Each structure stands twice: as C-alpha cells, then as structure tokens.
C-alpha cells in the first residue's frame, strides 16, 4: 500500500516537472517578450539597448538553460513579480485562489446534493419517466456552453429581473457577508448546473451496477425493503467510484471556473490566468497555471488514496 502510494507520489511529481517545462516553453512562445514590453514605453531605447538587457537577464540563452534557472529560483520560492499588478506573483495569487476555492467548493457541494439523490432515483427505475427526464437534463448540463449559460443567467436574473448583480465580487463600499453572497449566487449556479449532470450520470451508472450484485439479491430475498436495500446495502458500494470521479473532476471544474469567472468578472484564479495570458504577464501566468496543474494532480493523487482506503480489492489487482 505505502509502496504503491510512494510510486504514485513520485509519478505525480514527475508529471508536474514535465508540465512545468512544457508550460514554461509555451509561455515563452506567447506573443511579445518582457524586454520589448518594458522598452516599448520609452522611445529613447534602441535595439542595442534591448539586446544588452536581454543578455543581462539571460533571455538570449537557450530554452533549457533559461528553464533550469527559473526552476532553481522557483524551488527556492521565488516566482518573480507580476507585470500587471507589480507585486510578487503569489501575493497576487493567494486571495484569488481563495475566491476560486469558495466558488468551486460551493458548486461542488451543490452539484453533489443534486446529483446523488437524482442519480439514485433515476437508477431505481431505469428507463422510467423520471429516469428519462433526469438523463435528458444531465445531457443538457454537459452539452451547454459554459459561457452562454452564464450569459443567459445574467440576462434573466440581472438584466430582466434585476434581482442579482451581473458580475463582480462585492459592491463598492460594502463587502459584508450578505453582499458577497449575492455576488456568488449566479457564478455558483452556473458552475453547479455545468457539473451536476456528470455526477448524476456517474451515480446512476454506479448505482445500477451496485444493485445487480449478489448481496443485494440476497437482501431482497430476505425481505429487506427497497429504501433499506438502496441506502444501506447498495449506496456505500456505489459511492466508491463516485468519490474518484469527484476528485478527477477537479481539472474540469477549474476549467469551468475559468469561463464562469471571466463572464461574471469574478476575481478568482481562472480570471487571473486568463488576464495574465492576455496581458502578457509571463511570471503570473506561469505560476498560476502551474498552481492549477499542481492542485489538479494533487486531487488525482487524493482520489487514488481514498480509493485504496475504500476498496480493498484494488490491492490485489495492483
């Protein structure tokens, strides 16, 4: 068990290392470069100055050499300064990360609260009316373009009805709990609707499988009622794969958060990444992307650990 975990941990670190190099290389391929951006503000600089500065900062060195220097500093905790915000990158990132985790956490919780009961109900009578309806809604949930859903929520609740703010994090001059909550409602609703369908389908499939096990038939034969069979005998087994799916879903939740945050101008990681890429804020984009990737990989690792704990059969197969 611990050997397996060690292996998975090392693998995760390796993937992160490879990703850091790939992201570093890709960021370097984005339009413009830091020195040109710096100098474009002042016409007195010549190309000779630019070349000198590039040499000074090592920007004329080969990619691998630049990457290794960046890695060395990054490992020491120095990710550089943000161009857009003029602060160390992680000073910019932390508050944004908290906002995003709040958005993602609330949406995840709501999506599970919708997806699990609906998935169980749908599984009770496959192909029944409820099942068909719930399935159709689930399909709608993962077919709808995230940004359009967000736009439509704005049209309905902010433009037409005027109940909720169209975007932002808090009103100017306010910032109390209730005020912040009103700004959270629409983004959370959008992200929840986008996620719930996937969970629902998984819970349903997993539940159907669990209900076919022999011990369920035994329980039924012994006169156990449906509610008892489903909730006590099938549900615990059915939940095991669902736990994994939730953890594996972290990456796509983060992708969804990026779009939702951008449309609602919600100041989270997703919008930060988007703004950093569009604003040529290389250091910030690099650090934020890496953090997002690292968190996703950690979530996957956590999924493995939980799975091992919950399903002892895995030990034998690995």
């Amino acid at each position, binding site marked *: 068990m611990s050997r397996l975990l060690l292996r998975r941990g090392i*693998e995760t670190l390796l*993937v992160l290392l*490879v*990703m850091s190099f790939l*992201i570093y290389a*890709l*960021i*370097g*391929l*984005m*339009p*413009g470069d830091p020195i040109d951006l710096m100098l474009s503000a002042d016409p007195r600089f010549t190309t000779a100055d630019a070349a000198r500065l590039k040499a000074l900062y090592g920007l004329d060195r080969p990619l691998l050499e630049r990457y290794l220097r960046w890695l060395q500093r990054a490992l020491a905790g120095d990710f550089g300064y943000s161009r857009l915000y003029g602060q160390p990158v992680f000073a910019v990132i932390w508050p944004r990360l908290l906002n995003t985790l709040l958005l993602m956490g609330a949406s995840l919780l709501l999506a599970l609260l919708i997806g699990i009961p609906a998935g169980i109900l749908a599984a009770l009578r*496959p*192909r029944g009316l409820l099942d068909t309806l719930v399935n*159709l809604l689930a*399909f*709608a949930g*993962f*077919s*709808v*373009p*995230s*940004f*359009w859903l967000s*736009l*439509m929520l*704005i*049209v309905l609740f902010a*433009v*037409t009805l005027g109940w909720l703010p*169209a975007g932002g994090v808090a009103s100017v001059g306010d910032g109390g709990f209730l005020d912040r909550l009103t700004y959270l409602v629409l983004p959370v609703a959008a992200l929840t609707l986008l996620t719930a369908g996937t969970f629902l389908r998984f819970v349903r*499939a997993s539940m*159907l*499988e669990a209900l076919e096990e022999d011990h369920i038939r035994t329980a039924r034969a012994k006169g156990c009622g449906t509610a008892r069979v489903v909730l006590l005998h099938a549900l615990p087994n059915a939940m095991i794969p669902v736990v994994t799916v939730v953890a*594996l879903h*972290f*990456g*796509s939740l*983060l*992708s*969804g958060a*990026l*779009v939702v945050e*951008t*449309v609602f101008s919600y100041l989270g990681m*997703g919008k930060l*990444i*988007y703004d950093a*890429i*569009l604003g040529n804020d290389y250091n910030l*984009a690099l650090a934020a*992307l890496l953090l*997002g*990737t690292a968190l*996703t*990989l950690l979530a*996957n690792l956590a999924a493995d650990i939980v799975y091992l704990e919950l399903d002892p059969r895995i030990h034998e197969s690995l």
Partner: protein
Amino acid sequence: MRASETLASGRPAGLLRRFRRRPAAVASLCVLVAIGALCLAAPLVARLLGTDPEAIDLLGRFRPPSLAHPLGTDELGRDVLVRLLYGGRISLLVGLGGALVASAIGVVIGILAGWRGGLFDRLVMRVTDAVIALPLLPLLIVLAAVDLAKLGLPAELAGGAAASVLRIMVIVALFGWTTVARLTRAATLSIKNREFVLAARALGAPPRRILRAHILPNVAAPVVVATTLSVGNVILAESVLSFLGLGIQPPLASWGTMLTNAQELIFGAPALALWPGLLIFVTVLTFNLMGDGLQEALDPRQSRHR
C-alpha cells in the same frame, strides 16, 4: 473493457434497427441533418433574403425580426440569421474536422500501444492519464495564445484568419486523442490473442494485413461512438476559445465569436446572445444524444442498464 464487449455487435441491419428504437437519438440525427443542411445552404439563404453577410449597415443596427431579417440585425446591421448559418459552417467544420483528426491520432496510438505493448504501451498510458487529469482549458488558452511566428512559421501562415481554423483543430486534436487511444488499445489487446488472429498469424499473414483486416474492423465500433461524442466537446472547446477571443479570428466567424460582442451588448440587445449559444447548445446536445444512442445500438448488452 467496454470496447471488448462491443465486439459481437456485428451486423449493420441489426444496428440500424436498434438505433431506430432510440427516439432521442433518431430525433437528434434529424435535427443535426437539418442544421447541417441549412448551414451548407447559407449562401442560398442569403440570396433568398437579399442580404450580404459581410455588408455593414450602420443605419440598420439592432433591427427587430422582420421578413427581410427573420432574426433581426446585429450591432453592425448584419443579418443575424445569415451570420448564424455562416458561423455554423465554421463551428461544424472545426467540430467534425477536429474530432476526426483527434480520432485518427488516437486510433494509431491506441493500436500501436495495444499491439506492441511493452515500454511504448506503458508510456502512452501514462501520458493519457496525465492528459485526462490536466486542467484543460487554461492549457488550451496558452496554446491558442502561442505566437506561431516564434516557431519560425511565416507570418501570413501564422496569423491569417483561415489559419485560425486549422490551428484550433490542431489544438483540440492535441488533447482530444486520449479517449479513442484508450478504447482502441483495449480493443486491440482483447482481439490480438483471439483464435482468428492467431490463425492469421500462424498462416503467415504480415502484421500490416492483420491490423487492417482483423483489428481495425473490430475497433471501428467504439471509435465511431467516441468520435461522435467528441464532436460535441470539440465544438464546445472551439466556442469557448473563440468566445474568449483566442479561437476563430475575424473576418471569419463561428458561433463562439458571435457571442464575444454579444456580452458587451447584453443589456441593450440580449437577443444577440441568445441565438448563437442556443445553436451551440442544440448541436452539442444532439451530437451527445446521438453518440449515446449509437453506443447502445452497438452494445446491446450494456443497454439494459441505460
């Protein structure tokens, strides 16, 4: 595992019959054909309405729906319906093209991994695991923002509007091959030791022939399903990137780009945001429902469950 179970799903006649028994899938197919036909007929519709899709009419902005403009006009006075149909051509082209390229890559990688096994197989599976686990959209955005000129491509090739179509197909294909690769690998693994393959080998058939005559036909079913399902995802990815300004570049338009401007105008002209998104939604939904129906038609043993 799923893939191996689809093996027996043989004859096309039975397949058609089972597919027809899925009303949602059949309805989806009809809707898709209708949308596709309308988009193909975009120039015809434009001529019938007497409008030019590119013509800017600043005096006729934000017109309400009328006979000449069934869905009204946009912020530059262009006919919304005609723009939608032209945009649909790009969206569908990218969706189908991207999904096909991704599947082709996936099939090649999957068969090689399943057939040869060993180190290559393990490496491929690690990479697919990693790709599936990554936060895709942020990475897609970085890829879309990459300046191809820095890679040494000539500027006209790297920056053109037509290039943006190709580029986005390549980007989605880079991440989209994993599902097909896994399915193909699983199917290849399960077939490669079957008696008929062993017999073919014993008779001295070269690997190329075995792959073509025995493996590929048996892999086809799950691949078709996966490809159908991925068209929807590709369209979604394209529309998000285009919406964020990193996908299809003007003067070309897709449903995604049409929504970019609509966001700024949302208080004045909410209808502009409605139509392109609705079309993306319907198209993706129908592709997904159709893929689901195909899956069940190809795999009757599973369909008890669904």
